[in-house]
Each structure stands twice: as C-alpha cells, then as structure tokens.
C-alpha cells in the first residue's frame, strides 16, 4: 500500500539518509528509530508529502503521492510535533472545525464523546490555551478517534502524555491495526504494542 523507493533526505549540507526502501501493508506497524537529528521527522514529513525528497519516491497504492494529493490526504492522518490546535478555540471547536475541513459531517454528540473518551470530559469548552501540555496533546489525539484514515503518521505521539494516556493511545493504535490500518510512528519511549506485524526502520544504520 505504502511504498518507499530509494528515498534520500538532504538538509542543508548534510545527507541524513539515502537509498531508503520499505513497504507497508494494511495491518502493519512501522517504528522509526534513530538518534536526534537522524531524520525521523523529515522522513515522516516526506511520507505525508510535506517535504519533497531529494531523491526517490513515496508511492501510495502504486502511484506517487504528489500526483494524487487529494485522494492520498483523504486516507492520511498526520500528527506532527506541534499539535495543530488553535489556542484561542476550545477543544470542542478545534475538533469540530477539523472535521468540517476534512469533509466529514459528524454530529456534536460524537465530538463530545470523543473528547470525553480521550480524557477531556468537562474541559471541552475551555480555550485550549488554558489546558496543560498533555491535555493539548489529547485534543490533537481526539482526531484519531473520529478518523477513518487508513494511514496514521505519528511524530512522537507519546510526548507529554501521562501513563494512562500512553496506554490508551497504544490501545488505539492496536485497534487501528486490527482494522487493517497502517501506522508509522517515532518515539523514544518504549511502549508495548501488540501488533500483527511490527517492523522497524533504523535511520542510524
């Protein structure tokens, strides 16, 4: 489904990695390893199409993602370093706007349910600038509950989360994989995840 061929990343004068190949099928989990500055985030951004590879290509269902941006984006969920959450808007508003922008029509109940499930019950209507770092992250994570994207690309999803939330997110990822979804993620934390096929790409090698 997702295929990477001969990918090369150059930042400034540094070549971070070159000749990277891998494939990811439905139900597979891919963890990127590598020290700081090894190009994990750059690779994730290339997989999303935010960053143009210096060399090589990223294919989705056999075609370059840049040639089918709208179709690919409809099946992609990206959670970056920054939460993508507006500080002046409440958690509920953030989620509602995000859903409308993605072209999904969900009723308010579903949004409130998702926020409650992610542990923000009672705080849905606070501006997110009044929330803690971990709670802001949870607002961003609530998108995972309402999404039916096939490919999740998560950049350090566990940062700022407490133990309970880490376990919950791991469960979410497992459930997504069981439904035949794909997940690519990076983390420096060791989190146990049961997945059918767990693969690793180490950028330090």
């Amino acid at each position, binding site marked *: 489904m997702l295929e990477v061929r001969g990918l090369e990343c150059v930042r400034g004068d540094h070549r971070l990695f070159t000749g990277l190949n891998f494939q990811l099928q439905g139900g597979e989990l891919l963890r990127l390893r590598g020290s700081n500055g090894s190009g994990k985030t750059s690779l994730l951004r290339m997989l*999303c*199409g*935010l*960053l*143009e590879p210096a060399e090589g290509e990223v294919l989705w269902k056999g075609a370059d993602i840049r040639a089918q941006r*709208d*179709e690919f*984006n*409809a099946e*992609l969920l*990206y959670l*970056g*370093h*920054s*939460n*993508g*959450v*507006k*500080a*002046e*808007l409440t958690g509920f*508003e953030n989620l509602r*706007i*995000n859903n*409308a*922008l*993605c*072209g*999904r*029509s*969900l009723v308010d109940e*579903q949004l409130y349910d998702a926020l409650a499930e992610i542990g923000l019950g009672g705080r849905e209507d606070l*501006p997110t600038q009044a929330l803690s770092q971990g709670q802001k992250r949870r607002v961003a994570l609530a998108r995972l509950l*309402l*999404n*039916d994207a096939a490919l999740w690309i998560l950049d350090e999803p566990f940062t700022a989360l407490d133990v309970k939330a880490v376990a919950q997110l791991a469960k979410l990822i497992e459930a997504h994989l069981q439904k035949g979804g794909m997940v690519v993620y990076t983390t420096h934390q060791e989190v146990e995840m049961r997945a059918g096929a767990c693969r690793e790409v180490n950028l330090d090698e």
Partner: protein
Amino acid sequence: MSKGAITQPSLFAAWRAMIVRDLTLAMRRRADVLTTLFFFIIVVSLFPLGVSPEMAVLREIAPGVIWVAALLASMLSLGRLFSDDYQDGTLEQMLLLPQPLSVLVLAKVLAHWLVSGVPLVLLSPLLGMQLGLDGDAIILMMLTLLLGTPVLSLIGSVGAALTLGVRGGGVLVSLLVLPLYIPVLIFGTGAVDAATSGMEFEGHLSLLGAFFVLAALLTPLATAAALRISVE
C-alpha cells in the same frame, strides 16, 4: 464512525468552516483588528496637521491620502494571515486536507478581507468628510475601496506566504508587495480624481474590477504553491 465521502458539498462545508474559523479567531483577538483600524484613522488624521488645514488643499489630496493609508493598513495586517497557523501547526494540517489548497486559501483571504478590508471601506466616508470630500466623491471612493481592498488582500497573501518563517518577514513583505499594489492605487485614486474634475471614471472602475477578477483567479494558486514551499 461515519465515513464521509469527499463530495462537492463537503468542499463547500470545508470552505465555510475555514471562514468561520478565521472570523472566530479574529473575534477572540479583537485587539489585532482594532490596531489596523486605528492605524488607518491616525495616518489619515496626520495629514491635515502635517500638510495644511486648508480645505481646498485637503480636498485635492484626500483620495490619495485615504488610499495610501488603506494600503499601508491592509499591509500591516498581512503578517497575521498565515504566521499564527504556521507556528501552531494548523497550517501543516491545512496542507494535508483532502481539499484543493487554493480553494482553502481563497477562504482564508476572504475572511482576512472581511476583518481587515471591510472596516476600512466602512470607515472611509468619515475620513473623507474630515478631508472635505463631497458626497458623490465619497460614495465613489467607497466603491473603489470596495473593489480595491480585496485585490490588496489577494496580492498580499502571495507575499505573506512567500515570507512565512523568514526572519524580518514583515519588512520583506512590504518590499515584495508594495510595488504590486501600485496599479490598484493609481486606478483607485484616479477614479475619484477624474470624477471630482468632471471626467469619465467608469474606465478606472472597470480596470479595478478586472484586477479583482484576475487576482481572485490567479493569486490563490500562487499562494498555495508558496505555502507548500514555505512549509518545507
């Protein structure tokens, strides 16, 4: 979980959501909007003090003064168009939406114009009166601003997108965008000048309208391309 297919209505819903989002944000940060407005008022009010309090002189320069002030005010607000979204990561998310980026850009620019352009148009009669313009000239000036300020926002969006994340981007935007504002300024003030000296002004308005159509069609594409480059 409901699966929403991407259809035309959903594109319109996304378009509307983007406008509502930006208007809500502007409402929660009213100070930013008011700053632009006060800037506009103060710049225009400086001229009677600096040039001459003579009504005849003021009437002569009024269209130009108001237009230049509107130009500067609309540029002042450009910095906010994308930079906040860029910093909190919502811009990245916008680039990854399953909707054509240029259409969303157009929504953002429209919201920006509603917040920073329309108030200038609405305030201009007051400032026109202050500078001694008569009724007809004031109405015409409002009309030119109504046609011209959207063009300023549209052209400005390209500059704002190109200078995203650049240090000292605010000054750079002025250098990039001000030269492109010149035609709008010339025909905007030209229409009012022509009317006050009893000449035809329809040609000026038609040209402003043409600028608007051209800018509305082309600049969203350029802005979308510039955003993709800036976010890399």
